[in-house]
């Protein structure tokens, strides 16, 4: 089985995520009653093995966000960072990783402070091309807000994809947001 895949078409939602340092989702999340009124993103996680994720991280940093790169394994992220932060209370995270990393983070977030995966989109490769087409979203923050306000549908929301990025050995990646929700 070929392990070199191409990462195409489905947009990288991640570049659109709201980030910390004062950036927050709008507090009018009326369509998501269970969600906290504002969600500062504590940190944005990216998988350093993939060029598309590295670009996404750079984009996030340019928007003022804090990022953390992993190499598939979330242990260091958990051990050196998140477990300390989440001892103080819930703090939303977002990212562009593979499904295994997201699985671990979703479980840890629930165990640590009852946070949920509130948004995720899988980005599957499409055979036949090694380029991503399209353009970057113009307003990452607005786009992120829109996505989170679709909660709790968890549907794939088409987003403008990155342009002209070479692909790596990607099977599929997931963009996601894990955040506190109001208890019901």
């Amino acid at each position, binding site marked *: 089985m070929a392990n070199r895949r191409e990462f195409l078409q489905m947009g990288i939602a991640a570049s659109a995520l709201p980030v910390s340092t004062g950036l927050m989702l709008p507090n009018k999340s009326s369509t998501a009653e*269970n969600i906290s009124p504002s969600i500062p993103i504590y940190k944005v996680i990216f998988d350093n093995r993939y060029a598309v994720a590295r670009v996404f991280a750079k984009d996030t940093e340019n928007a003022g966000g804090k990022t953390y790169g992993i190499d598939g394994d979330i*242990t260091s992220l958990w051990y050196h960072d998140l477990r300390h932060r989440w001892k103080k209370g819930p703090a939303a995270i977002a990212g562009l990783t593979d499904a295994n990393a997201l699985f671990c983070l979703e479980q840890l977030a629930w165990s640590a402070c009852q946070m949920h995966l509130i948004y995720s989109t899988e980005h599957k490769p499409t055979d036949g091309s090694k380029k991503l087409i399209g353009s970057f979203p113009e307003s990452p923050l607005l786009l992120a807000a829109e996505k989170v306000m679709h909660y709790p549908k968890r549907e794939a929301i088409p987003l403008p994809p990155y342009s002209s990025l070479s692909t790596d050995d990607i099977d599929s990646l997931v963009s996601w947001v894990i955040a506190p929700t109001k208890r019901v």
Partner: protein
Amino acid sequence: MPILPPGINETDFSAALGQFAETVGTNWVFTSDEDVALYRDAYSPFWGSDEEKLASAAVAPESVEEVQQIVRIANRYRIPLYPISTGKNYGYGGSAPVHSGSVVVDLKRMNRVLEIDERNATCLVEPGVSYFDLYNAIQEKGAKLWIDCPDPGWGSPIGNALDHGLGYTIGHFRDHFGSHCGMEVVLPNSEVLRTGPGGIPGSKTWQQYQYAFGPQLDGIFTQSNFGIVTKMGFWLAPEPEAFREDTVAVYNHDDLIPLVDVTSYLTNSSISNGLPGLGSPLLRADSDPEHIALLQTSDRPALERYGREKNIPYWTCNIKTYGPKEVINAQWAHAREKFASSIPGATFTEGEKLEFPLTYEQGEEYQQGRIAGGRVDFGIPNLSIFQIISRTPWNPDPKFGHYYFSPIIPKTGEAIFEASKVFTEAYDQLGLSRPPQGITSLPALYYQRSAMLLMALQVTRNVEVDRKNRTAFKELIKIAAEHGWGEYRTPPAFQDDVMNAYSFGNNALRRFNETIKDAIDPNGIISPGKSGIWPKNMRGA
């Protein structure tokens, strides 16, 4: 609102939930769909089917007294409970109940490391303590002690030991139940029992002596539904001075027999105290077309010849030893001599040599390039194993997880050959995918005197494929039993089948368990169905 417990009306269930909330606080009773969904088994072989085992709600107590009160309420309303520690038992059931509609008792808030005794190398923990937590507590105390952890470090020492879980370090510490010492259990009648010397008020030796006066009860609380364990002691390993890992390689198919025999001798004599690791480079196809072609045939002499010519061993065994530097060097010298005199043509490679302590960061460096193993050899918890769930021809969509068929077989080369033949044929008959040259599931040698096969079946989340795999799994259980092999652990989907395979004396084992269950839990509130032990009112349902 998620499902109701079977036979419980909405009024009673609401009343019970209300009383749970009065006990633990409303924030710690989980009833919404999105909360309860997190107690689904992410690796469920039933995922998406009507048969999936689901919780009705979850409640998270913080103290033994709250656990007792939850048990009282459950008895009052006949609510089935399903206690979990950290709920990370993936591959063997996760946090989903055996009996759909049970209320999960999530013990994650009971996460105190109550004692670390460096002089006696013991600890006492609550069920919500993870391996990470215990490791950190030891580091913060500066104690020169090691934990022994399984691959995923987010699990609970108590939960893992209660399910007969295993680890990677030194000798008997790898057997997590075997290295426990003392339990506290909330019984189905809400009384609190302490085992071993803990039965003496103010005991001074609860974590130091495994037995008590009279029957040793601890075992009946493992893989069972006779109580909720709220504390447990463990023996820890004093930090060794050094470690070395060496490899012996042999080139003939039948060399596996003396290879395993010598390894057993070294293990049983404590000459090598680490986890031996069997491998077969020759059965692992590389890019050479001749090698690939040979693996498709049953021409064993030709394959052996190819291996010798190319210096590709048929079998290898990693020998790991912990202890003072001079001692382990001498131990390896003796081991090498034993292998050389027993297996003509054996070759040897000296591998990793380390001295301790290792910091967490040094452990991270050691892990580089490794997915399985690595830091866990030194009791450093991590989550690297989740990368291993990678795409292979036998695992085309890896993100949905797996579950293990894991029979225990004798620790001999002959038994390994027999099991390989039996299960290769079984896989073919059942239409299960397997590598071309036999199953190649070489056994794991966690235990000193037996071997364990670990064969993962994939969860596809295709209802029909998963149904076929479940049927195949049940057949594998029967085939194993026909050959005298039983499983050491299994997901809830197959616990009835495995218990039924232990059928000696007209299922005397299961009937005795049921007798205990009926006597101590007449309302059948604790984990009904766990390990095939059903309370009287649910048997045959």
